[in-house]
């Protein structure tokens, strides 16, 4: 595949349906074709971007977050609404984690599992004090 793929060819090469590609373009996650009209063509950069989008989706990113993550000057902030409350979790004497308040239950579950795992990793054995940096 070269730099002059049609939408159908890009769809086949990326295994991403043409309608989804058009949707990504409309959402500003993917650039439009390099040329307009009947000569509309897509290049390797489109293919690479689609692979990156898929990878980020597999990691749990929403399209809004992907747009923010991929765009060096995101048009929207990754967190779409102002944050007015945070939960503060002291998971070790020397580690504090902050989590945004009023998340959806599903996201809360995901975050809680990650914190539990993280807390396990950074747990200080009983009777020991966290080591401080030598001055």
């Amino acid at each position, binding site marked *: 595949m070269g730099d002059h793929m049609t939408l159908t060819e890009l769809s086949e090469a990326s295994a991403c349906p043409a309608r989804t590609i058009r949707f990504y*373009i409309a959402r500003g996650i993917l650039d439009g074709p390099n040329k307009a009209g009947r000569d509309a063509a897509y290049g390797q950069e489109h293919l690479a971007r689609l692979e990156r989008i898929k990878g980020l989706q597999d990691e749990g990113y929403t*399209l809004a977050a992907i747009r923010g993550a991929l765009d060096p000057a995101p048009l929207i902030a990754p967190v779409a609404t102002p944050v007015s409350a945070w*939960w503060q979790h002291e998971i070790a004497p020397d580690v504090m984690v902050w989590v945004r308040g009023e*998340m959806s239950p599903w996201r809360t579950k995901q975050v809680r599992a990650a914190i539990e795992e993280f807390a396990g990793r950074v747990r200080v054995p009983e009777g020991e004090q966290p080591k401080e940096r030598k001055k």
Partner: protein
Amino acid sequence: MTSFGPVAAATAAPIRLAMQRLWLTGSVLAAGARLVVQHVFRSDEDHPVEVIYAFMLPRDAALRAFRITGEGFEAHSELRPTEEAVKAYEKGIAEGSLSTLARQYGDGVVNLTVGNLRPRETVTVYLEILAGVELRDDGFRFRFPFTLAPAYHQRMRAAVVDGEGEWELPADEFGDVMLPRFRKDASELHEVGFDLSMVHTLPLEEVGSSSHAVKVKYDGTEPARVALAPAKDVPNRDLVLDVKFKQSRAQVLAGPVEDGKRDFAVVAPSTVFGRNPEEARRVVILLDRSGSMAGEPILQAKKAIEASLAALSDEDSFGLMAFDDSAEAMHAALVPATREQRELARAFLKQTNARGGTELAKAAAEAAKMLAGSGDIIVLTDGQVAGTEKILQLARSSGVRISCLGIGSASQDRFLALLARETGGVGRFVTAAERVDLAAVDLFASIGSPVASGLSAGANVQPAAPHAVFAGVPVLLFGEDAGEGIGLNWTGGSVHFDVPEGDAATGEAVRLLRGARMITDWESRYPSEEALAPLEKRQQSRVAGRLLELSKQYRLASREMSLVAVIKRTGDRGGELPEVRVVPVGMPQGTPFHAYFHGPASVVACSAFEAQAPLMSRRRVGAARPEIRNGASMPDTPAYMRMMVTKQPAPGADGNDDLVELAAMLEADGGMPGNTPGIRAARSAAAVFAFVQAGHTLTAGAFRLHLIRLAGYLRSLTAGSAEEKRMIETALAAASSGSAPVGGWVALSGAAGTGWREIEAAMR
């Protein structure tokens, strides 16, 4: 320039809606509905657009065809294998032609896509849909989704974008399905409405809606017409219509098709088969405590469980489990339904709050283990889960009967109806504006011991008859008749129905309804990953093969066959890239936006990390009860047009709150509590009068099981004076006849000191 386009109420700025209108028309029969949904698309943009409207199929539904009209053209859809239809659609898009595709995905979600809509162009798509109804012995409930509910999935991604809820599902399991954005306020979205004919063979008692204000036209001869009373409504809840007949008896709908044969549908009420035998019950109740149940639904569901448990006796045993991401059981095994255990259940429910996801399959598997092969599971849930085919597969393999009480204003009706049917249970779906507790008590009274089992029908019936029949729930059979009629046999009984001549329109409708039902059944056996496999692999799938056959036989769409139309217009310009617009919908009424989507927080809190930290505590946000409830009684003769807009009674205003509390008081022996045998007997008689006065009897009404238990207790009493025995006889007669003396029976039965003297005074 004058514009008649929609404007924002707050700012008067024009609103650019890709879809302006969704209007439902068609006929609703006792066996299902034949609908035409009008979608009006208009582009106010300066470039071509591709509009995607996502909706959920109703229960037992399939798409038949669409017609698309615009300035100077009209075209009809073709039914083609999905790959071919998508290719034809994409070719049309590339050539600049107006292309339309109606494609079905997992969970019954459909994407209707209209591509290359030109600037300022208006096109209308009329989509024909066949759909089932929820049957009851004395009528049916018809439900149509005007929005869809966001649904939980382990790998779902949700976010708030531009103030709207955006919800995405993993492509490897759900393909390229496009889902709408959800708006908290649906008032500036497309308008919705309906105008339906109710075709019935039995005289109508009542037609009403718990979801919308309706106007009803009925002259006693022509089919009743039910339409939206206001000029338009908003897409934030399902349409729910209830039809009640004046009598409960079998109906056979039929009509000629071909080769001198007639297609038929039989709706046989459970009373045809007999009454519930009294057998000990083994039941596990599963309460969905996921975040989307927050607020009124979970409160009502808890009350319902308490009242339902009161209908159990000492010989019965039960289990109670609450589930979200994981299942939490009151006990590891079933326990006898004693007063102590019911108190424990009450305490268990008290500490149960809505939170987390909806891992229904996991909870059902746990419950099945508790039942060890015999008994029933009752699930109280909003059913808001994605990937339902997998859940159905697991539920079927558990071998346990699952009955469902669905709660919600947007439809998961298709999934819950399938879950109940595929496991041999009973399903009911109520809106959050209705009495969930009453519906649960009614469902509880239906299940347990079937009124008939071992049901079998003749070879001309397809799909096969259900194995068992439950009280209050009719049997629906479809088939083809060559003059032999319909024979039904069950353990200890049989019945025969003649098939009337009927008319061609009815024959065609029941044939299509049968096809839609069979396609739905097969689709529920089609796990998403298998449905998304490449064509060569899918061709070896038994389910894919059967769906293709059924689609071709009945000319109905399925996941294997889609509807497509490509219209070439003068001036089509190939290569232009239409801009995609997904039509947003309203967040289902009563579902908290924050249950699915992030939002601004209003509580500031700091706490150390705890396993059950208030991270999970949730409050209900903006869950409003619909303000209207409508209905129209059906007169026998004169033609009239009536519009009724009445307020939904506040909880308790209809007296049913008191009855639920009364029901929850029954002791394990079926009697009311009390310090002495005399007080217990007197309060039990008063409770009988209270239920009967509210319209319940030993065989009808949600509290029939409670009345059976009260009557059993009163019959078992041997002590007492002649006068007391006479009053007991009066109470027993009232339970059978449905006629009770007028009195303040709820208060009397609930009062701890009520004795025979008070009962006698009240009867006077």
